[in-house]
């Protein structure tokens, strides 16, 4: 199915154009290769505007060939892509520059070379920007302007140019070299040529500046793709080389053609473009590989037990460790594959977000490096893979609900504990303090009442006794509501206190002195109090408690020999479950009841 789709895309209009351009570029490449490689008359300098071929022609040929490779790489990834057209066009322009200086071809071909060679600049500037998908918005107009200005200066120069009439060209030029010299006007022609060079200076400087900015701003976001780096390096070098090349020629027009910088800068430019072309080729071949991997995503996702999540799989096949997946919830927000809430993926600097849809619904948001082909995921993730992703989403949503339920359970228990703790404190700090104050007043009255009638003294004495009893009861009551000692001194002290007041023997065989999370301590304490309550009610002769930490779990065993009453231990189950633990009750006619509780220690 994907094969048919790419076959269809091949037959679209840009595809035909690109095929033609590629074919032309290859033909020209073959021709110039023959020219450069066959021994014969030394190539002749005809026009400095486009070239200083000769000794650097093999370098230019190499640069053109890397561009052809880059074009082929872009083409195989996406037949007819704009990047492929630009790369092939750049190759053609470089080869045209070689032809301009070749005596081995006809003057018509040389004229065509003169026309095409100046387009090397806008195309080479456009190439890296396009490769990194940065030619959007305003940049489109900049490039349109650049192409238009190049077209105007190049054709204008050609129409008004006759090499034979210019002093510095006369020794090696032929009178009818330029077949398009329709309206010869040498001053205008030279002016247009200089304008073209200045355009290249500005464009090259702009490219170098853009590449530097992009490099540093991407470095700040933390992760940088090596192919991005190579393309940016090539772009920086090419931009600077363009400036040098054009600057050398702007000088040459004053000081003569034999300036050694003319050929040196051409070599520099050719080398830089080779780096750039190689970078773009590498980047595009890798993207093609990624697209294939994404197409085969479903095989990776359906690995059965232990298979990696979509996020891990995409990070691996896209070679982008920062890939993040959010499964959108029905309301706002997103969760990861474990159902944990995550920030909704957003396209921040250097980041992009691709929604993956299924049946018109967004089933996942993939956040990835902005340099990734923006259509790659939506294009290459097949129906079967979408089903797998949707399954992962449904599992994630289910986990999110379980998490939410667990969290709400924890909140309910915590709220209950907090309320009991407050009540205990209010009794201590409120009612008890007031009773103490009354007790104090009564004692003062008692002391002052020695003159009073005996019945009044007896009444005061009785009140003092009553208030002492009330204080004692209040203290016991507050203790029963919430054991303050648990929160302040921990499980060992609280269980010790429980054993002190139990009406059957409670043997604490082992209780760690360490502190554990409050909900773990509370759950363990409640499990023991519940077992004690049942053991007391069931007439068990005693209770044995053993608690120990095993790795990151607190294991509590409560044995109640003689207690054989079955039935659910809902309070313990709820409490322990809310603390993220498990409890098991085993009842045995001979051994009695064993309550085993396992709680998290962190």
């Amino acid at each position, binding site marked *: 199915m994907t094969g048919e789709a790419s076959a269809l895309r091949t037959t679209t209009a840009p595809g035909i154009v690109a095929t033609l351009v590629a074919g032309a570029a290859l033909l020209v490449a073959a021709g110039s290769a023959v020219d450069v490689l066959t021994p014969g008359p030394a190539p002749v300098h005809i026009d400095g505007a486009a070239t200083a071929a000769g000794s650097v022609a093999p370098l230019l040929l190499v640069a053109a060939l890397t561009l052809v490779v880059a074009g082929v790489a872009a083409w195989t990834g996406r037949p007819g892509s704009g990047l492929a057209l630009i790369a092939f066009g750049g190759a053609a322009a470089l080869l045209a520059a070689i032809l301009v200086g070749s005596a081995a071809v006809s003057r018509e071909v040389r004229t065509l070379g003169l026309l095409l060679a100046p387009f090397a600049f806008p195309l080479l500037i456009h190439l890296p920007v396009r490769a990194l998908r940065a030619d959007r918005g305003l940049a489109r107009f900049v490039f349109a302007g650049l192409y238009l200005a190049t077209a105007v200066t190049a054709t204008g120069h050609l129409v008004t140019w006759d090499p034979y009439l210019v002093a510095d060209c006369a020794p090696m030029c032929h009178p009818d070299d330029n077949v398009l010299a329709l309206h010869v006007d040498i001053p205008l022609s030279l002016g247009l040529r200089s304008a073209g060079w200045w355009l290249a200076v500005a464009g090259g400087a702009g490219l170098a500046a853009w590449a530097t900015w992009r490099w540093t701003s991407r470095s700040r976001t933390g992760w940088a793709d090596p192919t991005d780096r190579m393309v940016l390096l090539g772009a920086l070098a090419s931009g600077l080389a363009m400036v040098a090349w054009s600057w050398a020629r702007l000088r040459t027009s004053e000081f003569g053609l034999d300036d050694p910088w003319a050929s040196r800068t051409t070599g520099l430019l050719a080398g830089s473009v080779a780096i750039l072309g190689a970078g773009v080729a590498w980047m595009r071949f890798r993207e093609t590989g990624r697209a294939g991997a994404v197409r085969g995503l479903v095989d990776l996702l359906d690995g059965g037990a232990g298979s990696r999540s979509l996020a891990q799989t995409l990070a691996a096949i896209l070679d982008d460790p920062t890939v993040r997946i959010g499964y959108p919830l029905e309301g706002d927000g997103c969760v990861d594959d474990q159902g944990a809430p995550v920030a909704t993926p957003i396209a921040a600097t250097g980041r992009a977000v691709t929604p993956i849809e299924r049946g018109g619904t967004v089933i996942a948001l993939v956040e990835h490096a902005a340099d990734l082909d923006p259509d790659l995921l939506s294009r290459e993730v097949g129906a079967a893979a979408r089903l797998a992703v949707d399954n992962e989403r449904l599992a994630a949503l289910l986990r999110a609900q379980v998490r939410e339920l667990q969290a709400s359970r924890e909140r309910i228990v915590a709220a209950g504990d907090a309320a009991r703790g407050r009540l205990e404190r209010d009794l201590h700090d409120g009612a008890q303090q007031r009773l103490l104050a009354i007790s*104090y007043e009564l004692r003062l009255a008692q002391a002052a009442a020695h003159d009073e009638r005996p019945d009044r003294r007896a009444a005061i004495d009785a009140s003092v006794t009553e208030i002492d009893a009330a204080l004692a009861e209040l*203290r*016991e009551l507050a203790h029963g509501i919430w054991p303050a*000692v648990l929160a*302040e001194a921990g499980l060992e002290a609280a269980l*010790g206190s429980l054993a002190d007041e139990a009406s059957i023997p409670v043997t604490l065989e082992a209780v760690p002195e360490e502190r554990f999370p409050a909900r773990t301590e509370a759950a363990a304490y409640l499990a023991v109090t519940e077992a004690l309550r049942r053991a007391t009610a069931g007439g068990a002769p005693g209770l044995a408690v053993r608690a120990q930490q095993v790795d990151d779990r607190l294991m509590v065993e409560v044995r109640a020999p003689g207690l054989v009453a079955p039935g659910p231990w809902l309070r313990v189950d709820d409490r322990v479950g809310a603390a993220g633990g498990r409890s098991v009750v085993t009842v045995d006619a001979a051994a009695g009841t064993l309550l085993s509780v396992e709680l998290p220690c962190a």
Partner: protein
Amino acid sequence: MRVIVAEDVLLTREGIVHLLSEAGVDVVAAVEDADALLRETARLHPDAVIVDIRMPPSHTDEGLVAASRVRDAVPGTAVVVLSQYLEPAYALRLLEGHEDHVGYLLKDRVFHPAVLVDALRRVTEGETVVDPTIVARIMGRKRAHDPLADLSVREREVLALAAEGLSNKAIAARLFVTDRTVEAHMASVFAKLGLAETPDAHRRVLAVLALLRA
């Protein structure tokens, strides 16, 4: 006897001050939090401080912390902690943190002037005081194999008073018997419980409490 009272509730604080003054104790300062207690102790060097276990900010165990800080800042100052907590764990924490000169009383004792003044006198003399209710609670604990089962009624009484921090002499006075009788009971009790006998009352309290809580 010069005493500082630290208690955050105004009524109770005034009550304690009043009762102690009536009983002839010289209350040199009454403060409402641990910082003020520390400051005044360093300034006035009292014989003893009475500190409520629950004080601002968290109203949990600031009193115990303050007791330790007082003892670190002015060594030798006797400390009586007043507590609402029945749990022996707090008393043990206080006792284990200090050699002697400490007492742990339930707050109700505040308005039994005789008990409070007696406790103050005992801690300033270097003894250890544990509230009888706490000792009774520990002694009354149900045990599968009760080490106290072998003790006679008299021996239990002697043990309880020892756990409250009383010296042999004081126990003898309390029970209207001679010192030698108490010594004999004590030797018997310690032998039955398997404890090494020590003349140091503070260590004796700790040993007994630890045994009974095990």
